[in-house]
């Protein structure tokens, strides 16, 4: 009896997934109201303006790159993979949280995903868009990017299947396609809600086209649920496969610091780690600005904190193994690379990543830290920086000391590298800001299901309480 009570108390301590004041109607009104309002909040315009300015910087940097060639970047022999690859891996990794939330948490019936899946999927799409830019620009002649696809060309050539570049093309394009489909299919019932709620004729037509004639009949829902689950099943392997392939881009090269079998799993964990950090970075301010604390609750932040902690520990294990294997392999080059990473010219980057990715997330063991939005926000930003540093360390420190000391060199991003990287942050922000204005950032139909389920549970327990009295 005492044990049962104890379990009850722990369960009670968990804040709910959705605030109790919401009803099926009010949750839809709350979310669709953000989109269908005539009064665009003033800070929104400010956000768009800022993001556009930063995006313009990106376009400017890309334009200059196309005009002058990749020489404007800092890449050179021996460090031929610079910012472009660092940023590519970073952005692709960020996208992974969206896929994990939408696919794996769906199949595992984690209901808390409902409040954040739409938003996280959108984040995935925009992150993949940013990621995709970098390898294309790195090609040198981006206008012939289609040479990467196998098609009957007039050169009589097929892509080099042994090249990681080609693996990336397939991994990333599949990922982008499935993510887009998943996101769009999830949107259909919500677009229909917006169509029905909209007062404006143009909005009705646009949302109407987007909702593909959704009427919400039982047959529609039946087929919809099956399609959504199937897509979830399709997307699940992608959570693991895409970043594994990105990891193999490195592991496939015989470069000390890259040529390691731990790369695929360690990259996947890192991707989810950074992805959840980005979700936290974005949702914490958003829930505040749009008054969504009742829908994205402390419970969500707590859960995201736990996932960051778990994946962060896997990443820490990866770092530890890299050092251990560097020593244990008894290979001159491996051990040189390991010590050079820790104490060489880029030691600052290595220790910074240890601080950001191991020491900082350790604090997430504390429940207090996980449930205080501002602290979690700061930690998530530190993790974002740390994961960027991780890729920087992997790419640059492995390359800058070649096998022959005569080929050693140093690398630093140029002004154009930084403009391109920071520019993609602006472009990403711009996409997100436009998204939250024109589409529901939280899945309304899934929230309605969740609310009605909670109401039923609450109703039963209230009745039980009455009877007991």
């Amino acid at each position: 009896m005492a044990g049962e009570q104890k379990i009850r108390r722990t369960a009670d301590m968990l804040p709910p997934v959705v605030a109790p004041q919401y009803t099926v109607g009010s949750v839809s009104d709350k979310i669709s109201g953000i989109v269908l309002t005539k009064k665009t909040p003033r800070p929104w315009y400010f956000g768009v303006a800022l993001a556009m300015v930063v995006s313009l910087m990106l376009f400017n940097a890309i334009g200059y790159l196309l005009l002058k060639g990749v020489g404007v970047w800092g890449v050179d022999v021996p460090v031929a993979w610079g910012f472009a690859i660092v940023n590519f891996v970073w952005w692709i990794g960020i996208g992974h949280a969206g896929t994990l939330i939408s696919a794996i948490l769906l199949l595992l019936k984690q209901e808390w995903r409902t409040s954040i899946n739409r938003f996280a999927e959108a984040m995935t799409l925009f992150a993949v868009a940013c990621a995709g830019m970098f390898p294309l620009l790195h090609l040198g002649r981006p206008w012939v990017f289609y040479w990467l696809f196998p098609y009957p060309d007039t050169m009589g050539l097929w892509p080099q299947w042994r090249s990681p570049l080609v693996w990336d093309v397939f991994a990333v394009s599949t990922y982008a396609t499935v993510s887009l489909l998943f996101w769009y299919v999830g949107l259909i019932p919500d677009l229909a809600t917006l169509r029905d709620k909209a007062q404006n004729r143009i909005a009705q037509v646009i949302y109407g086209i987007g909702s593909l004639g959704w009427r919400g009949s039982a047959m529609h829902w039946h087929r919809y649920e099956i399609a959504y689950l199937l897509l979830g099943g399709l997307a699940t392997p992608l959570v693991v496969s895409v970043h594994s392939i990105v990891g193999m881009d490195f592991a496939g090269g015989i470069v000390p610091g890259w040529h390691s079998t731990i790369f695929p799993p360690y990259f996947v964990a890192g991707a989810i780690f950074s992805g959840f950090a980005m979700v936290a970075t974005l949702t914490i301010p958003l829930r505040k600005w749009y008054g969504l604390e009742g829908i994205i609750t402390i419970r969500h932040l707590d859960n995201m904190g736990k996932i960051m902690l778990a994946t962060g520990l896997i990443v820490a294990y990866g770092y530890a193994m890299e050092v251990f294997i560097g020593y244990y392999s008894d290979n001159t080059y491996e051990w040189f690379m390991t010590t050079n990473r820790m104490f060489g010219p880029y030691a600052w980057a290595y220790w910074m990543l240890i601080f950001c990715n191991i020491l900082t997330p350790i604090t997430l063991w504390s429940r207090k830290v996980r449930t205080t939005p501002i602290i979690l926000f700061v930690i998530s930003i530190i993790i974002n920086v740390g994961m960027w540093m991780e890729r920087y360390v992997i790419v640059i420190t492995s390359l800058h000391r070649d096998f022959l000391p005569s080929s050693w060199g140093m690398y630093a991003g140029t002004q154009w590298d930084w403009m391109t990287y920071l520019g993609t942050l602006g472009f990403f922000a711009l996409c997100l800001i436009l998204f939250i204005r024109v589409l529901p950032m939280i899945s309304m139909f899934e929230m309605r299901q969740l609310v009605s389920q909670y109401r039923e549970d609450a109703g039963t327990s209230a009745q039980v309480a009455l009877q007991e009295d």
Partner: protein
Amino acid sequence: MPQIFHSSANTIAKASIFGAVFLVGAIAWVAGSVQRSPYTTDQGVVRDQPVPFSHEHHVRGLGIDCRYCHTSVEDSSFAGLPPTQTCMTCHSQIWTNAQILEPVRQSFATGKPLRWTRVHNLPNFVYFNHSVHIAKGVGCATCHGQVDRMPLMWQHATLQMVWCLQCHRDPEKYLRPRSEVFNMNWQPPTPEHPDVAHGNATSQLELGKFLVKEYGVRKDQITNCSVCHR
């Protein structure tokens, strides 16, 4: 609440799915066709020249050998274009007043070379050498077509990389004996007319295999990128 869409929207929506697939297919097909058409490759397009020189007349009609004018074809990357003096070896004696040959006489008098329009122009990133092709038994007509049937000069092949690779991947299908390289009318051996001098070959393929060995054509190397892109 009034309907937002007319009932025809259902049909349009369904048709647009097929329409999109068709459109993408059509765009791909058009792009591929344009890429291979003479519009892009200049294959079969007659070029304007300062003098309407006829290979048909000089080669088929008069029987002049290719090397009479293209003198460096056997030992240089460039086959060579004849100086005006070569033309004048005959045209100082015949057709001396022909209006059509006025630019030739002008050139001879002033010493300013004729400015022919180049017909076979490879991109600068491709290294091509005539002499090695001659030495390994690639006939002039294999790439340039039956020049002796061209009243005015045009490009016989597409000159696209896939065309080069057809032969670089399977040289057996195209090689001929060195002695026949400049022969415009050479025919591959047949069972009725075997090539006794070259392994009694009874077909192009047999002859080709023999010649690949005989002339030391390195099939494993001639498809390396750096053979042509140096």
